[in-house]
């Protein structure tokens, strides 16, 4: 079975691109299953169910959604195997840009919205720089020159990646993404993350509500960049 992890900011078009891609995968005779991770609420499962494929949602609630996705990867793989899936597509919630929940032996897909401007690829970090495929969406809203400048910036941030220009409305790019997925090797054992998740061991993680510095302990980073451990 293959594993595809799809990450990207909210509203970038992850689900729309995936809907078209899943249709292409089915046409090619593959059997995809989807796990959609979100924070508090989603009805994306209803959208995916229309494609007549196994769908599961996971709500991370109090946990960081990307940490939640990483922590539950094994369970997702087991579930997908039970469904006899050939490809497990894990669509992440995609929020802080800093997390890149990509294991080493998967196809890592970053979906990014061209209209957010050509500086975005520089801001995004490991979400984009460690991806195998960067899907640039909403290119129809900007000029060709702007699309090409955006592409150049993606190339600068992640020189080895494959860039696919996609349109979630028309389905442009979906068959290309499906082709890349079908060429991906099967997921291995003992997965390792491509990039560490952000530090998240502090009193805020365990529910501290008070803002003042004196109430916080753990691994903390100051605005000037100084990182310290405060505690016992």
């Amino acid at each position, binding site marked *: 079975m293959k594993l595809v992890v799809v990450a990207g900011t909210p509203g970038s078009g992850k689900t729309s691109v995936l809907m078209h891609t899943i249709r292409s995968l089915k046409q090619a005779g593959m059997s995809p299953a989807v796990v959609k991770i979100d924070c508090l609420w989603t009805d994306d499962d209803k959208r995916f169910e229309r494609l007549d494929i196994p769908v599961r949602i996971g709500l991370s609630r109090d946990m960081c959604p990307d940490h939640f996705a990483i922590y539950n990867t094994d369970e997702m793989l087991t579930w997908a195997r039970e469904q006899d899936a050939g490809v497990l597509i894990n669509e992440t919630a995609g929020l802080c840009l800093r997390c890149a929940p990509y294991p080493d032996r998967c196809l890592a897909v970053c979906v990014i919205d061209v209209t957010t401007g*050509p500086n975005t690829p520089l801001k995004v970090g490991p979400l984009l720089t460690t991806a195998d495929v960067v899907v640039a969406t909403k290119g129809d809203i*900007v000029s*060709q020159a*702007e699309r090409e400048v955006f*592409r*150049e910036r993606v190339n600068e941030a992640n020189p080895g990646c494959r860039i696919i220009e996609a349109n979630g409305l028309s389905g442009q790019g979906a068959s290309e993404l499906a082709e890349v997925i079908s060429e991906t090797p099967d997921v291995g054992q003992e997965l390792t993350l491509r990039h560490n998740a952000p530090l998240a061991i502090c009193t805020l993680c365990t529910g501290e509500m008070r803002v003042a510095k004196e109430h916080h302990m753990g691994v903390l980073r100051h605005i000037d960049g100084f990182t310290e451990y405060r505690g016992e």
Partner: protein
Amino acid sequence: MQDIHELTIICGIDKSGAKEDVEKIRICPGEIIGIVGPTGSGKSTLICDIEQLSQGDTPTRRKILINGKAPGRDIRTDPRKKRIAQLSQNMHFLADMTVEDFLRMHAKSRNRNFDTVERVIEIANTLTGESIQPGQQLTILSGGQSRALMVADIAVISDSPIVLIDEIENAGIKKQEALKLLAAEGKIVLVVTHDPVLALMAKRRIVMRNGGVRQVITTTPGEMNVCNELVRLDNYMMSLRDTIRQGGLVEQAVVV
């Protein structure tokens, strides 16, 4: 990539899923082709199919061939190898950059010298009323200025053997001059237009309806005469427009 001596559109299906009425359109260098039809009839979609060099993988199922063959993937996607320039209907830039930085970046993406940047701004300023400055933010340019900059960018940085133009008559720039800039000799040019002058300046025109190509009309000698008349009228309109824009009066009609 070798020279382009033919662009072929293998037609697909319309919005209802029915086959298009024309099977294949062949276009040679030096030809200007108009694309006409009511709004929503699929003119821009046809242009997009060509820009993407679609291979039956878009909803229209059209295939675009270059020199009779399906182009390879890098030619379809890498702007350094792509030989197609497109002026879309978009009237504004969204990129949060200065004019100069943006053009430099675009020149880099197309493997061009940075000295082309000055030329782009210079040419853009011949098309627009108020001039564009290199240090200005792209996002504050007016619709007309943005459009003029896009046209000049295509003429210089994206200078390509295939040029696609979507409604150049919008945004109040000098449309005939802009077309002359873009449709240099020996290029394949496709122009989406609602403007009879531009439609009749084309050698042939593709008629669209319900998302599909309905017919291809060759401009007749009679139409060419009409076109010459229209160009004279149009120039008269433009001169009136300029006078009014400059704050002048136009109380007397000049017989043209």
